[in-house]
């Protein structure tokens, strides 16, 4: 759009703001009359002066540059750029750069312990392709990726709805939570306060066939046939899923509660006047109006599910399952194959990226202002 134009010395010399700026503004705001050809070139300063101005504080910017019609954009981005420079530099150095390094290392045969290694191209990736342990770990990670967000978010939504709008109608209140909802909210949040290592240890105890609580519980409710002598080894994936969901539900209850709390009561009132019952209210009002929070939560929970490292590595024995992060860890630190592990990391990164992009695209809706 802006082609390089020769400097218009007369205009520059005149330096009349009243002359230059309104002209530029009208050029933007008002469509040029059809009979007049659209002005191809606008007088202005050479681009290099603009570039130079980008690096100078406004007080040192020559007047002539300030009157250029492109100056406003420059001013805006200069402001943004200078203020984000430091964080951006940190980000590039500490986040982006290690990424690039990871891609590079995944194409070497670095053991993780030496100083010398060779570039081997995509060999690590072809090896991954035919590594059944890798596929097992991938399958487990994907199962968690699919189920953990669905279950956790569904429970989180249900509980949050019950806490915020699920109660009986009381006087003076259109919608209210179930009895004791404030107490429940705190209780739901408890697992978030515990460190994930403690959660894993507690659940491993619960599933212990000798001293755990799960087997006796099953027996007491008449399901003795379901007791297992190795829950964690045989059903590691489902136990992991359970623990993941359990430990995160509380967080989503609080997140969704906040989101639901911001829905105006008038909307509920109107729907109740129209005779909507609880499920209609939920699906027609609460769900659509908390969609943004749900989508964000979905991505976040998916990322948690793809991790699950601490839970699996603390809780699940070797006859149980691996997920991608634990497989990566074994290869890097037990087997001394850091480059191969890095290739696993890159695959995990791509899966995560695809998932997040997909979710952002699929879930895009018009924001409802209220």
């Amino acid at each position, binding site marked *: 759009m802006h082609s390089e134009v020769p400097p218009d010395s007369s205009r520059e010399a005149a330096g009349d703001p009243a002359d230059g700026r309104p002209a530029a503004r009208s050029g933007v705001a008002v469509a040029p009359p059809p009979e007049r050809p659209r002005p191809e070139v606008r007088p202005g300063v050479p681009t290099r002066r603009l570039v130079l101005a980008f690096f100078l504080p406004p007080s040192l910017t020559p007047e002539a540059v300030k009157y250029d019609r492109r100056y406003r954009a420059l001013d805006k981005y200069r402001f943004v750029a200078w203020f984000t420079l430091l964080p951006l530099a940190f980000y590039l150095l500490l986040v982006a750069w290690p990424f690039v390094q990871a891609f590079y*290392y995944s194409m070497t045969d670095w053991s993780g312990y030496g*100083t010398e290694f060779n570039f081997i191209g995509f060999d690590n990736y072809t*090896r991954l392709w035919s590594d059944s342990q890798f596929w097992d770990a991938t399958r487990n990670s994907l199962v968690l990726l699919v189920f953990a967000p669905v279950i956790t978010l569904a429970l989180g939504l249900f509980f949050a709805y019950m806490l915020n709008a699920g109660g009986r109608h009381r006087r003076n209140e259109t919608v209210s939570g179930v009895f004791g909802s404030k107490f429940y909210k705190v209780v739901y949040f408890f697992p978030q306060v515990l460190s994930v290592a403690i959660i894993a240890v507690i659940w491993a105890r619960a599933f*212990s066939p000798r001293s755990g609580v799960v087997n006796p519980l099953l027996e007491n409710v008449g399901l003795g046939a379901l007791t297992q002598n190795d829950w964690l080894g045989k059903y590691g994936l489902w136990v992991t899923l359970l623990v993941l969901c359990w430990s995160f539900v509380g967080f989503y209850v609080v997140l969704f509660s906040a989101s639901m709390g911001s829905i105006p009561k008038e909307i509920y009132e109107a729907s109740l006047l129209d005779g909507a019952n609880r499920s209609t209210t939920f699906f027609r009002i609460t769900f659509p109006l908390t969609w943004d929070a749900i989508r964000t939560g979905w991505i976040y929970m998916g990322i948690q599910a793809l991790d699950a490292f601490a839970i699996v590595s603390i809780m699940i024995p070797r006859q149980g399952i691996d997920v991608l992060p634990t497989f990566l860890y074994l290869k890097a630190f037990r087997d001394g194959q850091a480059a191969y592990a890095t290739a696993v990391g890159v695959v995990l990164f791509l899966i995560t990226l695809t998932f*997040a992009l997909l979710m952002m695209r699929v879930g895009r809706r018009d924001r409802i202002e209220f």
Partner: protein
Amino acid sequence: MTSSSHLNRRTLLKRSALAGALTLPGVAALTSCASGGGGNGGDSTGSGEVSDRNPFGVAEDGGVEVVIFDGGFGDEYARDTAALYEEHYGSVTLDSTQEISQLMQPRLVGGNPPDMINNSGANQMPHPALIRDNQIADLTELFDAPSWDDPDVPVRDTLLPGTIEVGQYGGDASYHLNYVYTVHGTWYSKRFLNDTLEEEFPQTWDEMIRVCEKARRDHDVYGWTYAGQHARYLAFSMLPMAVKVGGKEVMEAIDRLEPDAWKADAVVATFEAFEELAARGLVLPGTPGIDHIDSQTEWAQGRALFIPNGSWVENESKEVIPDDFDLAVGAPTGLDSSDALPYGVIYAAAGEPFLVPQNAKNRAAGMEYLRMMLSNDMARNFTDKVASLTCVAGSADDLDLPPGLASAQQAIQGAGDNIIVPRFRDWYAELFIDHMGVAMGQMMAGELTAAQATDRIQQAANRIADDDNVEKYL
């Protein structure tokens, strides 16, 4: 690199910046990555004068930097050695940590390691990788040097059999000194077996079954329990048993990853013997799902008679082992009188590795520190302080040992030459942990037959034998 998976996800939401990441300086700049460094290390001899008393020539005021794993043995013994070092040479910088890998890996890669590392614990660095990358010094020099107590006797001759071998990876060079001598086998309460049950330790499998059934019938005590979540502990009894049945070739074939090593008659017969234990209901119910601590507790509380374990159990479970337990270890039970070797075959090996980095600034001092640790006084001090035997022969003689340790020492003497040291445990950790251990556990849980379990292990061994990414040592 190590945390890339976490970084990945954390940063994902800031995906907008990813485009920026990919346009970063080109591949040419990539070689200056985390693995820069790389020094060409110090000299193996120091700047001091070489003599019988100072075989590596440590300078008179030469310092040394050692890093000790602060685990079950603590670091007091190492501080005692440090005091001895400082009497003769310069100062000792001693760090003790549980995060060996986290702290040492960057320093090794950066070419700036300490002079001696106690590479142990859950965050141990894998020796095969360190050796392949030329990060560890060959300790042959140390083993050939005159010993601390008697210059006429080389260090080599003061050590228990199997000590130098565990540091060897398919050659004569020995890369780590395993200081703590560990006896693996079948552990039990001598009081319960001898006095309550009125039985002797079973030497044939028929006797084993009979004793276990008697305990179950008369005292409601199960025969066996084990660390179901680390079922590889079963190997502490099963591997020596297989060797007793079939001879030492059995172990050699397994270590060599031979194509029919796990299908040898002796191995399959051993697996079948243990399968029978489980099938007869002589294993404590729920055992497949408990960890080592739980299994040791159940056993110490008298719910099971035998447990496959190592001599660390006395220390690890001292809180739960009753005072009158009279802990003892038996060399694993054989099959019958047709076994290839007499009773007494035992899996005993030096553990707890200490190494000297190849690129250490003061390698001579690192070796000298180890030579001091191998002195009779220091070894005795170690046994005294942490109730574990060291690899220094005779250093624990006439010490007042706790019952388990005393029994372990008897077991070593009873074994004579028939001490086995399964090397594939260090060489091919994946085979030992992920394949052998898991298959043993699944067999005991009733999910696999002995034939299927050995098939699985054999297939895994074959895969590893064919895998070019895994270094082979025999």
